């Protein structure tokens, strides 16, 4: 036992207080393989929920907004971890934490926008627990990774009792917390095509404070030839029920020299697809406009970063 894990264990040995969490009663499962997890999921149907990093599900359970009778903790499934280089794409295990994404040299070299985005998620303590799979599969429109995965045109690898299948991130999200994933399926990995070498990228996120969801955020991947944009992908976070792929805005930009008039048109096109809720972050009008500002700034930064 290392010193730090000993100290961690010693802390947990202290008697737990009654008010640490107040969820309803549930049965805790900790499978060690995907097959085992799927079997538990199959036998309990809607009453079971897989648990990844837990940063969305556990707060909801504490508030009793979610009351699963069976909680399937996936942290013991070794097959769900790791980041692999598969030539033209990178495959990331669903239980890979945001901390591990930030630490990965492979991602830093091939998909630097993942590190940039991960660093804007919550705080280090949460990133040690929060996973890419949980972030994309939960269907929370506040999460940052879904829009990024749409921007990168990623594919989710899903395993169910009927076998395995692949679902494009751009087809995955149906409404807030509703996704294409069947109740007996798990997202096991995310496959991301590697953008062209020298691509420009930016994730611009406006938030009230550390740990907050985005008021609005925009992911941009862009390639250029000289002063001309040769390819562009844009997606938006937390300004609708689902992440939003701003394809029209991206098309407007592509082929342009990113002149002010073109950017204004692209921003307007991006704003047009938003449908944000009014909340403590601001009224809908504000959040729509902030989506536009984030697109504007992300485009400028990605363009500057792109090698010509």
């Amino acid at each position, binding site marked *: 036992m290392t010193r730090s894990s000993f100290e961690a264990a010693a802390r947990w040995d202290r008697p737990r207080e009654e008010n640490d969490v107040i969820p309803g009663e549930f049965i805790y499962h900790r499978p060690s393989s995907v097959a085992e997890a799927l079997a538990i999921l199959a036998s309990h149907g809607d009453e079971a929920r897989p648990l990844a990093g837990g940063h969305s599900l556990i707060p909801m359970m504490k508030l009793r907004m979610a009351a699963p009778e069976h909680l399937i903790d996936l942290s013991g499934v070794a097959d769900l971890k790791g980041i692999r280089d598969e030539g033209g794409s990178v495959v990331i295990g669903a239980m890979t934490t945001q901390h591990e994404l930030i630490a990965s040299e492979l991602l830093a070299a091939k998909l630097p926008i993942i590190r940039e985005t991960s660093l804007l998620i919550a705080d280090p303590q949460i990133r040690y627990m929060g996973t890419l799979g949980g972030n994309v599969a939960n269907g929370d429109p506040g999460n940052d990774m879904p829009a990024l995965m749409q921007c990168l045109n990623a594919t989710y690898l899903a395993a169910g009792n009927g076998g395995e299948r692949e679902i494009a991130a751009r087809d995955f999200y149906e409404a807030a917390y509703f996704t294409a994933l069947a109740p007996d399926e798990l997202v096991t990995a995310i496959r991301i095509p590697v953008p062209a070498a020298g691509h420009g990228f930016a994730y611009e996120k*406006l938030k*009230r404070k550390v740990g907050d969801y985005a*008021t609005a955020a925009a992911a941009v991947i862009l390639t250029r030839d000289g002063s001309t944009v040769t390819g562009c992908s844009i997606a938006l976070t937390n300004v609708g029920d689902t992440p939003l792929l701003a394809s029209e805005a991206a098309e407007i930009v592509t082929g342009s020299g990113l002149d002010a008039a073109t950017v204004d048109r692209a921003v307007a096109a991006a704003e047009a697809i938003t449908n944000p809720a009014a909340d403590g972050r601001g009224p809908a009008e504000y959040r729509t406009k902030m989506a536009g500002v984030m697109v504007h700034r992300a485009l400028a930064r990605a363009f500057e970063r792109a090698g010509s």
Partner: protein
Amino acid sequence: MNDMTPTREQREAALEGMGCKRKRVEDIRFTQGKGNYVDDLKLNGMLFGDFVRSPYAHAKVTRIDASKALELPGVVAVLTAEDLKGVNLAWMPTLAGDVQMVLADGKVLYQNQEVAFVIAENRYIADDAIQLVEVDYEELPVLVDPFKAMDADAPVLREDLAGKTEGAHGPRNHHNHIFNWSVGDREETDRAFAEAEVSIKEMISYHRTHPSPLETCQCVASMDKVSGELTVWGTFQAPHVIRTVASLLSTIPEHKIHVIAPDIGGGFGNKVGAYPGYICAIVATIVTGQPVKWVEDRMENLSTTSFARDYHMTTEIAAKKDGTVTSLRVHVLADHGGFDACADPSKWPAGFMNIVTGSYDFPTAHLSVDGVYTNKAPGGVAYRCSFRVTEAAYCIERGMDILAKKLGMDPADLRMKNFIRPEQFPYHSALGWEYDSGDYHTAMQKAMDTIGYRSLREEQKARQEAFKRGETREIMGIGVCFFTEIVGAGPSKNCDILGVAMFDSAEIRVHPTGSVISRMGSKSQGQGHETTWAQIIATEIGIPAADIMVEEGNTDTAPYGLGTYGSRSTPVAGAAIALAARKIRNKAQMIAAHMLEVSEYDLEWDVDGFQVKGNPGLRKSMKEIAWAAYNAPPPNLEPGLEAVSYYDPPNMTYPFGAYFCVMDIDVDTGVAKIRRFYALDDCGTRINPMIIEGQVHGGLTEAFAIAMGQEIRYDEMGNVLGASFMDFFIPTAVETPHWETDHTVTPSPHHPIGAKGVGESPNVGGVPAFSNAVNDAFGFLGSTHIQMPHDAWRIWKAAKELGAHG
């Protein structure tokens, strides 16, 4: 003297007395997670209580059926108002002279109001049982907007007050009216306005927020049915008052009630009052004979126990063309929620709002405050400020900026012109206070020079031009605030809580070996009393602070005091400590004289002992004197060395300060960046500069939060919005600006050590400085006043309305 004899300076340093940057002794346990808080307490057979709460803001409660909950294994009892009526506790008195439901008695007046109290073997079962208690509600029209409270057709909130035209503070003129409190000369004020060369009028709102200590309100109540003794451990800023109130309400004699406030994780005013949770836990332990713990969760804390502010202040200033102010007229509409549970001294329904003339020499002024009921949680506590002083400071400091703008004067110059002059102290304000001491001009000049005020104004002008030319999307604001606080409640002639005069106390006992145990009527919630109180004693009686133990919070052992809030501890308890220490020193002098065989008049005090005048080699240290006090006292003098002092202050103290905030605002997102924040505080004599600095940092951080977004909001149905730390703005280290602190020292002439109190100054002065910076940034675009809180979307909205988005 040989070389080993410590020098006078070394002996002085060894004391770690007043003026020393002594490290906080309590932090040794706090930083190791070894504090002892209420929720750490576990007693044999302890039960857990939790509330069924109302989902509605205004509704009749037509039926409560707990039968299903009672069938759940582990549920011991469910209390409702009907049960509490049996012990006459369905309602309880508030500190403000109103009454408040403990549990819903036929209706609810705000969302999350306590409806029933479930007592179970643990918190999980209690929470399960809450879901099983069936309550039928009949919804009533909801009143959220205080400006509509006194409309003729406004819903009746308080049927229990039907026909009562007289409240605790005079006539009520509407069914939702609580009181009107007026002070000042109305006629003279009106005349000054009629004759004014220039005047301004603005409705300045200070929004509803919450003290939000990290540790929520909680208690454990334990009744010993054999001895008839009740022990209550709780998060109490004023444990003695809680005991007296508990005795009066329960009819258990006061000596059979033991109230203990252990370590407290922040209070900020949230833990002054009495809450339904305390009453229910006490009743539950009496009913069950088992200890009962009640712990609020975060949402309960933010949505039910004690909000702060919610003052809507129509502010008028009359002035001459040269900027000399001639009168101030303020009307406040105060939203008190469903019950008037303000934690003010009982005769002060609007606290010390009449400090609203601030630091300026107003010949006349008039203040009128109307309190109204709405369907919101009760409270109105002093969140890190003396009673309503933050509201007053915000009102006058915004008002002075608005006047400066109208006159085309620099806001710092306008303040300088109107300051109360040093020779006017003690100064009698138009609204009835006697300011003890101050040197405002010196403080303001020092602040302006340090921050480079004039060059900042030049830079701002250049940036405004650049913005107009389209070269930048950032605008710059300079927030100026000069505040005067009124703290140290208070003199018994005008301050009491439910009839208990607001003195405070200290007891000091020197042991034979020269170490000390001391106990006070105050109660630290993080202020560092264990450190600073020892420093006062160290300087006064020459015993090292390290040898002095400070103990607070146990009503059985500590002398009676009114507790810690409103920056009252240093002005009141701090004085009692110094005076008790001086009693000890006086006796020590008699003992030293006996030991040295001289007359006590031949002795002089020297750092840590008495020496013979003109022969400093002939001396006795306090350590030697302490031993002699017990074992060889002079004839005719009783042995021992201890003293107690109760201090009824002759006046309040009036700390002041000059704060400057430099802010850059991105008009496209509304995000404000604090470039600099400079805080000069004058709190009189400084006991521990490091603790003062820490207090200022903490208070400024809270002020930053409040001004820039911290808010308890309601929708039109009375649903409380954002009652979690996801939405309720608590800045982290990332958001918190860098603080520059500074000071001047103008001692209080009436306080034994000249100290004035500081903990709340940064909140009082900070909020106007931030808000003035935002308002100052937008002034050149034609804005007069932008309401708080200044979160990004509201700043963006202001920018948009002023045409900054093109």
